């Protein structure tokens, strides 16, 4: 932690101005994406497709028409919301790798409310969303409690609880609430609990606005409010925050709980807005996508919207690419991984250069 170990030079010691930094990271990101796309082109040629055709198909799949754009937004919605869940923890200096599990629990709880009760529309929907939020929070309750009270590492406990959540929801779906004659899914929710769609031609629904509102709200919270300021200070230097009168333990608990609640909401939005039922194993990897989106955005909620949109568009485009070209989904996965790697390296090179060797160290 001392000056002496710093062999790399600091960035100019003047006030960081908002705009150039933005621009810089934007340019860096674009550069990284081009590198990754170049890698994608090589792969496309390897499978005997013209890279141009592949990319055009990708673009068309993502943006070729209102319904395609809606499809991209639809894909982005759960990534935005789970990304925000990850952001909340990340900015408070915590790691919630369990978004995946909370998403499953939230999705299931919302569906359960949806098919079990008969209620008027606004109330039913509200209750469903509340159930999703509660289930997500509940699912992180024990890890959060032990993290706050005894310092139990939340990364491990949330990773492990993912497995339990997925198995448990599978159990409930298949053995307790299975729709007779159906596949591994519950009965459909009643229409009063459905999250309204935005357009006729797409399943895109109000979930998108929930996600964007959450991101903007979180951003305002972090930059404007006392509680947000305390939370950021905690994330950046907990000893300092503690000294300054920020109640660390309580905040750790609350932050994880909020993160879990938003994770649950991500699942609830999926079941209430898109599937209208709970399907066993319906969203593998969404939680991890969200974590990656949040980390690529360095925990910035607004940037998270954009990283999530990027992932969503890529995914939507890849669906068409799979139908129209020889490039199959694994190749898309490979390209996607390359893009994430390139972006992560590029984006963070400049940011991280001024951190010291010891600060990158994972804090156990």
């Amino acid at each position, binding site marked *: 932690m001392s000056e002496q170990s710093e062999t790399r030079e*600091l960035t100019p010691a003047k006030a960081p101005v908002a705009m150039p930094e933005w621009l810089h990271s934007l340019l860096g990101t674009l550069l990284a994406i081009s590198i990754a796309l170049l890698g994608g082109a090589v792969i496309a040629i390897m499978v005997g497709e013209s890279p141009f055709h592949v990319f055009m198909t990708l673009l068309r799949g993502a943006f070729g028409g209102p319904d395609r754009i809606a499809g991209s937004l639809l894909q982005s919605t759960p990534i935005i919301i789970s990304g925000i869940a990850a952001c909340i923890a990340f900015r408070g200096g915590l790691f919630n790798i369990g978004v995946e599990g909370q998403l499953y629990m939230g999705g299931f709880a919302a569906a359960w409310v949806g098919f079990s009760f008969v209620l008027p529309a606004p109330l039913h929907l509200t209750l469903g969303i509340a159930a999703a939020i509660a289930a997500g929070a509940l699912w992180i309750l024990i890890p959060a409690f032990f993290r706050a009270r005894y310092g139990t590492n939340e990364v491990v406990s949330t990773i492990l609880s993912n497995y339990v959540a997925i198995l448990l929801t599978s159990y409930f779906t298949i053995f307790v609430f299975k729709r007779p004659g159906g596949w591994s899914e519950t009965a459909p929710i009643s229409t009063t609990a459905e999250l309204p769609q935005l357009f006729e031609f797409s399943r895109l629904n109000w979930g998108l606005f929930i996600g964007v509102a959450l991101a903007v709200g979180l951003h305002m919270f972090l930059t404007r409010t006392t509680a947000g300021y*305390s939370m950021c200070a905690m994330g950046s230097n907990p000893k300092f925050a503690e000294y300054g009168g920020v109640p660390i333990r309580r905040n750790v608990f609350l932050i994880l709980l909020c993160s879990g609640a938003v994770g649950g909401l991500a699942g609830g939005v999926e079941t209430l807005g898109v599937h209208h039922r709970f399907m066993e194993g319906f969203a593998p990897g969404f939680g991890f996508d969200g974590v990656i989106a949040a980390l690529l955005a360095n925990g910035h909620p607004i940037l998270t919207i954009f990283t999530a949109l990027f992932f969503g568009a890529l995914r939507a485009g890849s669906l068409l690419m799979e139908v129209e070209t020889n490039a199959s989904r694994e190749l898309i996965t490979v390209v996607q991984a390359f893009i994430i790697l390139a972006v992560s390296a590029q984006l963070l090179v400049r940011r991280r250069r001024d951190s010291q060797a010891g600060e990158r160290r994972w804090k156990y």
Partner: protein
Amino acid sequence: MSDHQGFRPTPSFGAPMTNAIEMRGVSKRFGPVIANDDVSFAVKKGEIHAIVGENGAGKTTLMNILFGLYHPDTGEIIINGEKVEVDSPRRAISLGLGMVHQHFKLVPSLTAADNVFLGIEKTRNGLIDHAAQIAQTREFSEKFGLSVDPEAIVANLSVGIEQRIEILKVLVRGAEVVILDEPTAVLTPQESRELFRTLRGFTDQGMTVIFISHHLSEVMAVSDTVTVLRDGKVVGTRPTAELGEDDLVRMMVGRNVSFSRRKRPRTDGERILSLKSIWARDNRGLPALQDVSFDVHGGEIVGIVGVDGNGQTELAEVISGLRHVSHGEIVLHGQKIQDGDPRLVRHAGLAHVPADRLHRGVDKADTISGNILMGRQDEAPWSSRGVINWRYVRERTEELIKRFDIRANGSRTLVKTLSGGNMQKVVLAREFSRAMPFLLVDQPTRGVDIGAMEGIHDEIMRQRNEGAAVLLISVQLDEIMTLADRILVMFAGTIAGEVDADTATEDEIGMLMAGRNLSAAAAPTVNEAS
């Protein structure tokens, strides 16, 4: 093997006045900051050479360049008459340099011997030969009178011992030139004297010592030559004998500074802080405070002195609510506060300058205004109804930057780009501007230059005169003597005695700090226990 061990005696031939080290025209910029500006100076073989200067004058940077940690933008380094390229610490070590850093670089979980031999381990059959390392550490420790237990785990040792291990590291690597960056900042007067005796021993054996210090008295007492830096430039290099302390101060800051006991109006304040029979544990679960009781009244400065690691840290933490109290009662401004809740304590009326400014006192990743806000984010007009008034925060910050002479480019400067002394000023600016009934000031001038020190002392006195109760914890006896109304001496987690600041002598306090007035049987050994 012999390459690495022992010092090499200075060759007897050659001119007696050869320079061990010479730096010529060295410049180093960090962005817009010119840390070193065309610095040239020379260190003669066999002398103790002191480097002094205000905070941010560029002392550490210069030594880092010499030791190969930074690469200079321009300039050259000449060692033993030969121009050399010092591109890494490894190279510096092979050139016979050794550096004891301002912040120790020991690995807490390893033994003293492991730390000493880290990087140059002795091996047998490919495995580390711990026995040989321990034997050799012991040998060196005895030879130079450092008394270090080679098998002790560093995490359990006091700072003084840690420093000796750092010195052993340098010696074992065969250094002829030993560089020490603010070596006495964390030591007691006795320990400092001990250190300088050791350093004099080195020069007697033909080695060369360079040290950075803010303590002019010790510079005057032990150095042969002084180099003064100001704003990255060399003001001059003089033999110490030709200088008075006043001259030195003038060279450093360009003006006179008085450093005698402050005059003080009598004030009779009510009791603000009261500790009754406090017990607490340290991080390792060992008893750190035992039955500590005292009061602090408004309008007085109570000084706490003691060797580092005798419970002062824990005492400060207990009072500020950062550490749980095992037993006992603390009342601050009429409010009981032993629940270990810093927020509650702050609301009860505490302003706190913590000793560990890098980790506790600031958030280095945040701006100065973000740091100034901490602790009053709940108070109007800093915030209202849960929303922060950033405009006000920034205005106040700019004001404080001026008032406390923080060298920074405005309120949006990131704290991590400031020098150590300026970081400390950020902490002081925040805490002293709060006008709280009780001020807990822990090592306020550690690593701070003499010009800034005076300003800080002024502030502390002003707070006292305005009626605040001040608890001043410092390892620097002269600071306590200058400021305190009453002095409490801590030893082994207890208050070993109280002395009147007006009549006490330094030796009297030194004896108390060393625990000598306690009978050996009754003195519980706290800090050295493992």
